[in-house]
């Protein structure tokens, strides 16, 4: 596409639509915007010229690239835009101005970030994804959602600041601000690595994911699940391919969420852990860094966005109809929600990588790449995690929600628009997983849009060999057999109400506790200190507490009327200050 239109980053279309939606009280107009924007952006993406800088600018001596399409950004942006369209259909029943506008801006920011060729514009969209998406969590309107949203925002703003500082450090060391492959060593590169690690849910930096996602709104969680973490995967594949430490980080990421998921009661939280586990497969493949492995990561990201959205949509439908996703309160819903059950089972089969479903053709690329590179322990860990995925996403989610012990709940089937969106996602999950009976059909289509589609190993890769089908079926059927056996002898742990501790206990208990303790010490010690300083500082502390504590001014009234907005404004201001002072 030539002319001015060809130089516009497709993500900006969605951001603009989000801006307009934010000022439009008419629901029909916002629905039109949400449906039209991804379609227009898709057309722009499909007609874009590849591998050239389509929009550039020089500002304050930085060479910025706003729009550049290549194989890697293409497949991620394509998956994002398809997800955006499906999400728009899924959200048709709801009338929420702020959620529509923030959702659109968030999706647009993630798409736009894929095309950025320099760290400054990447940083802008990176932060934009954080400050827009947090409203999808706040919109739940509960205190728990609000606090989880603040923790989410804190970590993500930190991720953005680390990214910017790292990039600046790197710029002053090398004079180059472009997004390119980097090697760990320079402290700036380490900061960038950490920034991506927070968003990608590396071990110990992962807590925001399972903390915030299950507390977002019905539609909000579906939107959140597709973009933030996959943007980080994209950035890792762009900046750190072949970084060997990622192999181990990824393998560990696949294993530990499995254990959290088995004891968790909230099914949307189980899906969040499962999301974390799936990211591990991609991170591991990026660590291998061969064209086959990077193709595997990209293919896995594409199918993952589809089946994970599908699973979150089905649990969203359950939440919408019954008001809960706790396993202890669900069960037997297949009686009145048969179509939601069918779609959930398709998502479950896809994520478990059954033959004929998308997970089978995408995960095997990464698995083979890890094995070819000779990493036997990580490979065994990934294989262990594959059985774990089957446990929590393949069996636990559908079994406890739709089958299992009858809860006596008889809700209506999901609204038609939700079923339509789930059907579309299910169609992609099956369509991408089918054998290539004719060239360009089934998995062949997915393989043809991979970033290194002309890599000989990928071109010669055939997932549907008798060997591969047999071994995969052995893994899955024997794992299901283990479930049946354990269930019959009563060794399967029953679902229980309760929450599961995670490493975020460090700041949620000890951190808050320390702050409270130091506060009380300060108020006692402060006044007794002689001179003006003592009384002044204690008064300052009381003022601060009056403003910021949960009993204070900013928390009064509607939760996100004042405090949320002010915190976002303050964080934004501090970022601007940090940016320009440096």
């Amino acid at each position: 596409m030539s002319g001015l239109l060809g130089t516009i980053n497709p993500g900006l279309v969605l951001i603009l639509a989000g801006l307009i939606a934010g000022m439009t009280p008419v629901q029909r107009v916002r629905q039109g915007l949400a449906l039209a924007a991804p379609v227009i952006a898709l057309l722009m993406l499909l007609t874009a010229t590849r591998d050239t800088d389509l929009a550039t600018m020089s500002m304050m001596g930085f060479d910025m690239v706003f729009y550049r399409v290549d194989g890697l950004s293409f497949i991620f942006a394509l998956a994002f835009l398809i997800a955006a369209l499906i999400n728009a259909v899924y959200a048709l029943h709801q009338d929420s101005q702020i959620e529509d506008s923030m959702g659109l801006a968030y999706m647009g920011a993630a798409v736009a970030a894929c095309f950025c060729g320099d760290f400054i514009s990447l940083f802008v969209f990176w932060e934009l994804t954080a400050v827009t998406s947090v409203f999808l969590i706040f919109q739940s309107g509960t205190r728990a959602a609000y606090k989880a949203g603040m923790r989410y925002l804190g970590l993500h703003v930190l991720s953005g600041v680390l990214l910017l500082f790292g990039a600046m450090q790197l710029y002053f060391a090398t004079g180059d601000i472009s997004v390119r492959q980097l090697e760990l060593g320079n402290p700036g590169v380490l900061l960038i690595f950490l920034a991506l690690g927070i968003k990608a849910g590396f071990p110990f930096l992962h807590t925001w994911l399972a903390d915030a996602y299950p507390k977002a709104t019905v539609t909000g969680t579906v939107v959140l699940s597709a973009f933030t973490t996959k943007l980080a995967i994209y950035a890792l594949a762009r900046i750190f391919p072949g970084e060997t430490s990622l192999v181990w980080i990824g393998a560990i990421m696949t294993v530990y969420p499995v254990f959290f998921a088995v004891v968790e009661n909230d099914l949307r939280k189980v899906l969040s852990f499962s999301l974390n586990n799936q990211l591990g497969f991609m991170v591991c493949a990026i660590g291998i860094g061969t064209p086959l492995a990077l193709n595997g990561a990209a293919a896995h990201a594409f199918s993952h966005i589809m089946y994970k959205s599908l699973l979150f949509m089905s649990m969203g439908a359950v939440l919408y109809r019954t008001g809960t996703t706790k396993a202890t309160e669900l069960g037997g819903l297949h009686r009145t929600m048969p179509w939601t059950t069918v779609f959930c089972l398709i998502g479950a089969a896809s994520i478990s990588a059954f033959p004929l479903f998308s997970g089978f053709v995408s995960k095997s690329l990464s698995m083979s790449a890890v094995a070819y590179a000779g990493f036997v322990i990580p490979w065994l860990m990934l294989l262990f995690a594959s059985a774990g995925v089957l446990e929590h996403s393949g069996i636990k989610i559908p079994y406890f929600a739709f089958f299992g012990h009858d809860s006596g709940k008889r809700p209506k089937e999901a609204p038609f628009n939700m079923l339509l969106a789930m059907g579309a996602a299910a169609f992609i999950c099956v369509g991408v997983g089918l054998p290539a009976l004719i060239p360009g059909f089934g998995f062949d289509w997915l393989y043809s849009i991979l970033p290194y589609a002309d890599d000989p190993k990928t071109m010669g890769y055939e997932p549907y060999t008798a060997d591969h089908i047999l071994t995969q079926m052995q893994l899955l059927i024997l794992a299901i057999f283990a479930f049946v056996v354990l269930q019959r002898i009563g060794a399967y742990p029953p679902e229980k109400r309760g929450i599961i501790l995670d490493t975020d206990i460090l700041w949620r208990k000890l951190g808050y506790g320390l702050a409270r303790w130091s506060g009380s010490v300060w108020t006692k010690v402060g006044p007794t200190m002689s001179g003006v300083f003592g009384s002044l500082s204690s008064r300052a502390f009381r003022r601060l507490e009056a403003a910021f504590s949960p009993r204070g001014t900013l928390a009064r009234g509607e939760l996100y009327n004042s405090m949320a907005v002010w915190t976002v404004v303050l964080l934004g201001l501090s970022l601007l200050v940090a940016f320009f002072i440096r």
Partner: protein
Amino acid sequence: MSDSTKPPHLSDHGEHALPDDSHTRPTAKLLFGWTSKPWTGRLLFILFAVASLGLILVEPLLEMAAGEGHHFRHAYFNIDAITGFYAWWGFGSFALVVLAGWPLGRLMRREEDYYDDESEPAGEEPHP
């Protein structure tokens, strides 16, 4: 909240009152009606036992059928060349994960209001 309570499925093997099916939709009866029958559990157990055994046993047969000098399986390492390796690994991993749920639940599960702010429901009114 102790972990020693009887799991719900053990107290209801189908010999007690069957679930109320008066609201069940026809599609659901057609697709999933079989899942709430009293014999479902035993049937699934037998089906999966047979399928598992078949999948393991078919491997040496296919290996023999591949003929002299050829291999049906293309193993990456030594460990996965063992007959039925994926089957053992899948069964073992799954059992380990599930059984780990008992001690882990005891160790890491807390009351829902442990963090003061978690006690509220997810914040969605049902739309039945």
